[in-house]
């Protein structure tokens, strides 16, 4: 892990990012955001506010329409092909519906986090480097899934799957972790446990995290910083303690739903 560049400046600078899937219907309307090199930032906001799109624009799973995404000094929006993939492998992602490869084993799913570093013939033969395999098993142990290594991913429960999802992202040794509604498919207790696991593992490794969340209370519980989005814009940015009723009303619109 040692040689990771821990620059003093911000990990991520998003500048005036816009995205429209259909002409004239922008989903992101000029989002700007700086992210420190540590800590957990949660993005809250109503459905359709553009939270998922924002996250996917960062690792270019979605192409931004305009703006810049500067990651450790490099504008990712300007990259293509191999260069983009080389940056992408430094950014881990956790998904709402886990997105594990269902028919592969748990350990293969974890190891798939290393695919950015593996030539295809080795991927085909599952010839991962010894240290990757060792790390995958260590991580599995930490996630409490040791005995599931050889199980197929579709045999796991939701919470277990999301643990594998987190493991896969951490296998990348990411310098940034993106989590898109990581608990929305889980029950409240499992949601809290998953957030706990993700927060702990990320803090231990000094990885900054951006999490999209629906559950405001859960978000506030784990966040160092909260960002409120409405209609493609950031309308709030501050610590969880600053999240007053008025702010929530501004983010979600109206107050009636709170009572």
């Amino acid at each position, binding site marked *: 892990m040692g040689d990771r560049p821990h620059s003093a400046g911000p990990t991520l600078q998003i500048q005036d990012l816009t995205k429209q899937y259909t002409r004239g219907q922008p989903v992101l309307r000029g989002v700007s955001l700086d992210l420190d090199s540590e800590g957990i930032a949660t993005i809250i906001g109503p459905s359709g506010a553009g939270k998922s799109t924002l996250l996917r624009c960062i690792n270019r*799973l979605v192409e931004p329409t305009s703006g810049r995404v500067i990651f450790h000094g490099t504008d990712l929006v300007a990259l293509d092909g191999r260069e983009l993939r080389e*940056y992408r492998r430094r950014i881990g992602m956790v*998904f709402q519906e886990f997105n*594990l490869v269902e028919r592969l084993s748990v350990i293969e799913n974890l190891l*798939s986090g290393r*695919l950015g570093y593996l030539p*295809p013939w080795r*991927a085909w033969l599952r010839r991962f480097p010894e240290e990757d395999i060792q790390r995958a098993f260590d991580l599995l142990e930490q996630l409490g899934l040791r005995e599931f290594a050889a199980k197929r991913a579709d045999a796991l429960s939701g919470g277990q799957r999301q643990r594998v999802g987190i493991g*896969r992202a951490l296998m*990348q040794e990411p310098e940034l972790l993106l989590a898109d509604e990581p608990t929305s498919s889980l029950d409240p207790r499992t949601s809290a446990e998953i957030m706990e696991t993700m927060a702990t593992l990320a803090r231990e490794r000094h990885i900054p995290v951006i999490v999209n969340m629906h559950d405001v209370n859960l978000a506030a519980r784990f966040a160092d910083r909260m960002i409120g989005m409405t209609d493609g814009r950031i309308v709030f940015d501050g610590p969880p303690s600053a999240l007053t009723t008025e702010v929530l009303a501004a983010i979600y619109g109206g107050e009636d739903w709170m009572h």
Partner: protein
Amino acid sequence: MDALTRRAAGEEALPAEWAARLQWLRRRYGMRLAWVGLAGYVVYAGSVLGFTPARFWAGLGHGYVFLTRLLPPDFVTRWSDIQHDMLESLEIAVLASVFGIVLALPLGLLAARNLMPPMVTWPVRVVVSVSRSFHPVIVGIVFVKAIGFGPLAGALTLTIASIGFIGKLFTEAIEEISLKQVEAVRATGASFLNVLIFGVLPQVSARFVGFSTYQFDSNLRNSTILGIVGAGGIGGTLLAAFQRFDYNIVCAIVIVIITLIMVGEVISERIQRWFQ
């Protein structure tokens, strides 16, 4: 008032509903016409072809005589020919399946619209669908004319057929995969090939094995007929036996073919179960 409120208030609802009803009635009417047309064509085609019950019954009588002449099967007289040609059929089927599958795999992938741009999928789709357009016997005639009599023509014919069918089925399987799993693998920074290996193949490999064994079955069946047009295999001997009225030999050949195909089916079922 904007359009939405007007519709909500019901002011625009009625005419739209009438139009829908009218269309529905028209469709029912067209449907009935189509049925009547089909029935008429069946009667017409039957009369043109001399398809009468009397002829059918007479045919059944001939069929019975023919069946009695088949028995007992004669495995002895032409056994070395039967053995040689049967093995040739098997070889044709195996070669065609292997080459067909190996070629269909990349073609099927290139034709998948959820992974490839239209510029790639369209030409590949044309190739695959042309491979599927003609019956193997017709393709067999072409190959026999082009490269001469013998099993090579048969093997090439069935390779084309395999490409046509497996290619299409494989493309459809790929187009049905979950892109979420693919997206997750892509997000790790994996190269396109690695995304295929980890994100796509695991989702389709079991079905691909299914298609392949099915195609092997089909190739085995078809390899027994291609000899009729001179493309090698048991079909040639079968035709010769028919033309010489050696019905007991015909019977022996038919029994051997049935046995081979049943064995093939058992094997492919085993393979499929092994890969599940």
